[in-house]
């Protein structure tokens, strides 16, 4: 098991290297000359040339990449072109906010998706099953940002139960209750498509598992249905659900840009959006790199957790086959 975990972690290193290459290259896609973005269109060719040399932009790309990577590895993500401050100072505090939002959304998605999936599977074919399944299908097709707007319209504008925007600081701001009220709408909005997908996967795997022979054997043994569902079925349905759950956490991380824009949530996604609009490329690079890193680490965790859940893999490592 330990060997599996270490092996899996080692596999991540080349992937992270690739990620850094892609992040670096993405920025090269930007049209126009960087120096005219920085100095304005009226700058002289001479001034541009000086700046280019200063920033190392006259060097070949691999050299630029090497320097950038070396700096990043020391925690130096460069200087924001817009705010004239180190990028790390801008993105690290925001990361906490994004983690809070993504974490809450994931929690809602798991609870909602998992419980509705299990219940619909247990009552497969009934009216209840059909209604919930149809509802989840529709939820799964709703664009994140539009779902967010619908929630804002209903809960913030029409009924005035919850604030839509106005979150500035999660730490050292208006206290836990303030954070919570601001968190509800974006977290729910971000969770809905994931909840829908997890619900569908859970239902499908539960139904599949419930049709297995060992379930019939358990019934023949006179084990109560509730126990069969809770113990025998759930335990075996779990690995695919965990896999999808992990993938959904990653998907949430991607969709978070949209949710943060709709709710003006002060997170990494909002930073990326504003940096893109302001052509602040070092900040885009830094924030995207952090998001991708988080995504890779989530996938790694999911793999390891799944390996622990499956006794066959566990055995292949340390167990003795007789």
């Amino acid at each position, binding site marked *: 098991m330990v060997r599996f975990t270490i092996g899996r972690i080692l596999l991540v290193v*080349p*992937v*992270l290297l*690739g*990620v850094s*290459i*892609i992040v670096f290259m*993405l*920025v090269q*896609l*930007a*049209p126009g000359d960087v120096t005219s973005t920085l100095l304005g269109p009226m700058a002289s060719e001479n001034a541009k040339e000086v700046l280019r040399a200063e920033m190392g932009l006259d060097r070949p790309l691999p050299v630029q990449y090497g320097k950038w990577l070396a700096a990043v590895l020391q925690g130096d993500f460069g200087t924001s072109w817009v705010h004239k401050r180190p990028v790390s100072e801008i993105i690290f505090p925001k990361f906490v906010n994004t983690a809070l939002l993504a974490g809450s959304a994931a929690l809602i998605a798991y609870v909602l998706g998992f419980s509705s999936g299990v219940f619909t599977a247990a009552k497969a074919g009934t009216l209840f099953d059909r209604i919930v399944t149809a509802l989840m*299908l*529709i939820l*799964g*097709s*709703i*664009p*994140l*940002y*539009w779902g967010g*707007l*619908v929630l*804002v*319209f209903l809960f913030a*504008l029409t009924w005035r139960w919850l604030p839509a925007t106005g979150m500035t600081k999660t730490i050292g701001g208006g206290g836990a209750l303030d954070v919570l009220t601001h968190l509800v709408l974006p977290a729910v909005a971000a969770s809905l498509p994931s909840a829908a997908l997890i619900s569908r996967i859970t239902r499908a795997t539960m139904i599949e598992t419930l049709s297995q022979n060992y379930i019939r054997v358990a019934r023949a043994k006179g084990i109560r249905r509730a126990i069969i569902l809770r113990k025998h079925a759930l335990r075996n349905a779990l690995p695919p659900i965990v896999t999808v759950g992990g993938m959904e956490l*990653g*998907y949430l*991380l*991607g*969709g978070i*840009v*949209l949710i943060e*824009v*709709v709710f003006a949530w002060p997170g990494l996604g909002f930073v*990326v*959006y504003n940096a*893109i*609009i302001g052509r602040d*490329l070092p900040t*885009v690079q830094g924030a*995207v790199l952090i*998001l*991708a890193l988080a*995504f*890779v680490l989530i*996938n790694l965790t999911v793999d390891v957790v799944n390996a622990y859940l499956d006794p066959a893999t566990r055995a292949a490592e340390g167990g003795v086959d007789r």
Partner: protein
Amino acid sequence: MTDVPHLGRPRRVPAFLETFWASIVVFSRHRVSFTALIFLILVALVSILAPVIAPHDPYVDVGWRNSPPGEDGLILGADGDGRDVLSRLIWGGRISLLMGVVPTLAAMLASLLIGVVAAYSGRWADQVIMRVLDMFFAFPIVLMATVVAGILKPGLATVCIAIFIALIPYISRLVRTTTLTVKNEPYVEAARSAGGRGWEILSRYIVPNVIAPVIVYTTTLMGFMIVLGSALGFLGFGVQPPAADWGTMVEEGRVVLRKAPHVSMFPGIAIVSVALAFGFIGDGLRDALDPRMRGR
């Protein structure tokens, strides 16, 4: 259960026609998928015929600002600039459908090439392709598309390129694994041992068997890509004003959400229903292209 009567039936029509027909029969029995297909065809027709069908010029104010549905003779009301929401919706459908369908199809073709090459060319080329794809998998698809679209110059082409790039790893991976499976099927081994040439085996046995699951996957993706394309429009990376796709329309309505929620709601509903329809068609296709579902 009773497959026996099919044995030995004389084939009067070419095999592929029969297969095709069988697929259509299975598909049309899927009532939901069939309805979804009709719905999508209607939406596509209305979009294509936008210049004829749209009651008003989508770029000119024809009513009071934010006038609700039904007033001023505008069925779906007017937006914040007094433009007809219905006409903008019809014109916007052109862009939204295009953003969902064209880059996805293009990505499918590119991925077929990449995936088959990876699976077929053996060790190192496969390794290189897979490792490069792995790097792209390290990005959530929405983030990838957002950043690519955001960095390039805003426009329809940008959104299409962003979706195209973001999709390739996913479809390629499917193509590769399916090709590897098909490659080792007994009927391919048989063709090979019967002296079939590499190219012949590839085009007659491998590609036709790989393409079915890829088409199903691509269809399901189209719905998702319409949602993603609209999101890029919503962020302002797509077509620029006064033109608008459905996502851009949602964004325009955001400013007047309290006074005129209909401006955001109708395009949203359009996105959801089209995305759902693609999903249903994908389900129907899955069954239709599965030989086990035929003759039931």
